[in-house]
């Protein structure tokens, strides 16, 4: 054997030496490992303890229930309904693609939905629930529930979703809520809002967002790693949103909406004594319910592009010339500035001319109205009387007099999106047109034309001041105490009465422009107006309005109040492209007042009918 001989003793010594070294290494390594555990468990204990607590206790948010919205009589207009949200946790599914395809028919998903779902799945971790469909009703969920066992990982969870009753009629007042977007979320208090909360986007829902939203509560739950709560305790109860009671009377609102029939426009009915808005419509309305869970592209485009512009809130955003509805205010200004008295008469031959100027300003009635006083001038809507009066007043006095009525200023109505409008003046023209004021512009200002841009809500605000003889109460949509301020307190009561008399004559005098509308049941007053629509061709200007295509016809205006002796309701109606205030707008105003009388039992009992 060429091999080296074994030397048992030497080998044993060698082994023992190696074993000893190994033992030393083992003990050293164990010591180092224990040091590591000492470091984690003793030195860093507090850190990890805090992390372990964070792991175990999960504070979850309890969404507050959004406040309800009622009309003045307690009719529920906006409520919260239980809806279901179908979600999927992708890591719990087996064959997601075929499941989605099967669901497509079962619960009705379109390509747009599927595209979004696939994108969400791609960009979210597998343990995060992905929403398949929102706002499913009980029946849809029941359909799914029967098949549930075929869809592991899919779950329908209930949540509260806004629901609008009488959505179309109330659309422009209440507005709607929808999912909060990233920009809105970044501006909100993170303690109050979650990233998937609903938030008021427009209307009452937006203006009273803070009150309606409420404060979320906190749910403290002990959970396991799968997110399953083991025990739950409410740490802080949510304080639910405040319910709101509108000043709107749904019945009157509905009547006003219906009074328009197929016409577009706006109407506002207010109580001039306390500033409460009883009805406020912009026709057409739209179904606000469509917007809550995200409106489809198709639906949105059709609303956006509809020629009647249903999304446009004419009552606060529509800008119109007041036309002849400005005449009562002009008359009051003339009386107040002692340029005229109730008895002053002037002769209208149908044409008005400024001294040394060729341009002729016409009456609507060819040949004029003859000898007229202020009351007749209102009743017959005599332009020449007001051309003359306006020139005598001058633009500065006109502006100063109209301003307290809120013409051309935001009324501060408690919904968002009000448009300011324009009260013409020298300073306005200088600032916006960089031109001086021409005397001829004062003439047409006297009949509410020219640079005026007034919204229906401003007309309603001004009318309520006029009707209540100088009591300015800010218009509002929510029942609340509102302070009344006296404006134009230096105006003699007799002057207010004279103007009321003139407006009463519009309907009740034999020469009144709207005499056809006189009611035998109550006495009401009013004034018609026409708001010019521009964009007519040269040729069209000379045509009669009724002969023009509808979209070029002038807007018809009518303001009214009733009963004359003790006014309870003031109404502003704008019938777009209605051409004639008395023919198109006045009947709508009459219907609204009729409805008010009927709803409030103010009509005398019809005894003959009972017999």
């Amino acid at each position, binding site marked *: 054997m060429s091999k080296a001989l074994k030397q048992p003793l030497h080998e044993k010594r060698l082994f023992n030496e190696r074993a000893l070294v190994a033992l030393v290494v083992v003990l050293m390594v164990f010591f180092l490992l224990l040091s590591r555990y000492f470091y*984690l468990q003793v030195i860093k204990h507090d850190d990890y303890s805090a992390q372990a607590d964070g792991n175990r206790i999960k504070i979850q948010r309890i969404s507050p229930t959004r406040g309800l919205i009622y009309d003045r009589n307690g009719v529920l207009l906006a409520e919260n309904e239980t809806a279901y949200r179908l979600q999927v946790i992708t890591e719990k599914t087996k064959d997601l693609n075929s499941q989605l395809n099967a669901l497509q028919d079962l619960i009705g998903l379109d390509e747009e939905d599927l595209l979004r779902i696939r994108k969400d799945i791609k960009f979210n971790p597998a343990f995060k629930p992905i929403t398949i469909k929102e706002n499913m009703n009980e029946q849809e969920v029941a359909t799914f529930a029967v098949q549930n066992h075929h869809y592991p990982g899919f779950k329908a969870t209930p949540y509260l979703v806004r629901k609008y009753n009488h959505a179309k009629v109330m659309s422009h007042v209440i507005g709607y809520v929808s999912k909060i977007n990233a920009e809105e979320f970044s501006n909100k208090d993170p303690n109050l809002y979650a990233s998937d909360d609903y938030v008021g986007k427009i209307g009452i829902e937006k203006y009273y967002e803070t009150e309606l939203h409420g404060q979320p509560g906190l749910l403290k739950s002990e959970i396991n790693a799968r997110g399953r709560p083991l025990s739950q305790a409410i740490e802080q109860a949510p304080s639910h949103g405040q319910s709101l009671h509108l000043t709107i009377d749904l019945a009157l609102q509905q009547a006003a909406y219906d009074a328009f029939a197929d016409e577009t426009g706006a109407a506002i009915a207010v109580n001039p004594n306390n500033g409460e808005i009883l009805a406020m419509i912009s026709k057409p309305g739209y179904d606000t319910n469509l917007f809550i869970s995200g409106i489809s592209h198709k639906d949105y485009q059709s609303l956006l592009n509809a020629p009647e512009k249903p999304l446009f809130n004419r009552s606060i955003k529509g800008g119109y010339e007041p036309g002849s509805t400005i005449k009562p205010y002009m008359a009051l200004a003339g009386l107040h500035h002692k340029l005229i008295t109730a008895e002053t008469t002037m002769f209208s031959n149908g044409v008005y001319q400024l001294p040394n100027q060729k341009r002729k300003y016409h009456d609507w009635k060819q040949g004029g109205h003859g000898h007229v006083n202020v009351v007749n001038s209102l009743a017959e809507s005599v332009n020449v009387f007001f051309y003359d009066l306006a020139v005598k007043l001058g633009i500065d006095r006109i502006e100063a007099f109209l301003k307290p009525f809120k013409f051309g200023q935001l009324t501060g109505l408690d919904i968002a999106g009000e448009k300011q409008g324009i009260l013409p003046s020298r300073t306005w023209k200088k600032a916006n047109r960089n031109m001086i004021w021409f005397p001829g512009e004062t003439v047409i200002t006297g009949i509410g034309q020219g640079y005026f841009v007034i919204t229906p809500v401003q007309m309603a605000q001004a009318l309520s001041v006029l009707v209540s003889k100088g009591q300015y109460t800010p218009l509002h949509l929510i029942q609340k105490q509102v302070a009344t301020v006296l404006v134009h307190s230096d105006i003699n009561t007799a002057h207010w009465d004279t103007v009321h008399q003139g407006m009463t004559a519009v309907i009740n005098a034999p020469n009144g422009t709207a005499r056809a509308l006189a009611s035998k049941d109550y006495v009401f007053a009013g004034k018609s107006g026409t708001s010019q629509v521009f964009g007519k061709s040269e040729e069209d200007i000379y045509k009669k309005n009724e002969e023009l295509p509808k979209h070029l016809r002038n807007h018809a205006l009518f303001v009214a109040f009733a009963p004359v002796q003790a006014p309870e309701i003031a109404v502003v109606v704008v019938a777009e492209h209605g051409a004639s205030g008395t023919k198109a707008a006045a009947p709508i105003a009459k219907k609204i007042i009729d409805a008010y009388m009927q709803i409030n039992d103010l009509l005398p009992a019809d005894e003959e009918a009972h017999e």
Partner: protein
Amino acid sequence: MNKRRISDWFDPVLLLLILALLGYGLVVLYSAGGMVLVEKQAVRIGLGLFAMLFIAQIRPERFEQFTPIIFVVSVLLLVAVLFFGITVKGAKRWLDLGISIQPSELCKITLPMMVAWIFRHAALPPDWKHLAGALLVIGMCTGLIYQQPDLGTSILIALSGLFVIYLAGISWKLIIGGGFLAVLSSPVVWYFMHEYQKQRVLMFLNPEADPLNRGWNIIQSKIAIGSGGMTGKGWQQGSQTQLDFLPEHSTDFILSVLSEEFGFIGVALLFVLYAMIIMRCLFIASQAKNTYNRLICGALTLILFVYITINAGMISGVFPVVGVPLPLVSYGGTSVLTLLASFGIIMSVYTHKKLIQQ
């Protein structure tokens, strides 16, 4: 003939230490997995203890005699895994022979036995020829297991063989040179590593980079350990464990459970038990009657040490996650059976050392 004493049947010291460790493990397992797992594990432990005491009665010469056959069988099983293995999580490690077995576990005993067998008659320190033979069998087992793929186990297997070489007295120069070579070759190893293995290493280097997926286990484990503190949260009181934040808490991460519920004191107690077992085993090895016995005793002991170190280091974020159970404590049949079997071999060496002295 004299009446045989207890120590002629088994080593009471080692048995006591093992029983203490097993008992401790079951207590922790109850907290981690409940009575169902404890019952299952108790059955395996019972089987393992029976096997251990049975093996302890076999004369070490028999092991020596059958080593080549056992080794060839285990290599054949490794080859079989590559062809007929059950794929779990992308790796073929299991073989279904009525019961599922993991042949790589078997290699943890048979490979050091084989290396020791190669050295059994050689003059130590071994010459180049013996060394080459040893490295060949080590490379064969390591390569086969690496193919499964199972990086962690293949490294452990390689170590179990290398320990025999070390204990055989190979010169320090060679050891240091070999270690140096291993470090130099690491870029090559990296090149041949599977993508998931690279990710594991990367994740180990920076677990916070991917806290929700691969880093999650380590982060949660560290929270469990750290929140345990000096005295622990108490038995069955570990929130990380009881609320399921801790992954695989009855198997690879059972030490996290122990750390959370029994604190640093509990961990120290465990290490004391392990250290005592290792010392006792090395003592037995040094008392062994021949080279083969010494080498397998020593190698099996050191591989136990490596297991403990890797597991304890892994769950506390010192080493990458390699999926090594905590010896005699983690839930699982194969691990406990092989370990108890190897203790059986060590005990056999112990009970048979005196025969030669007579």
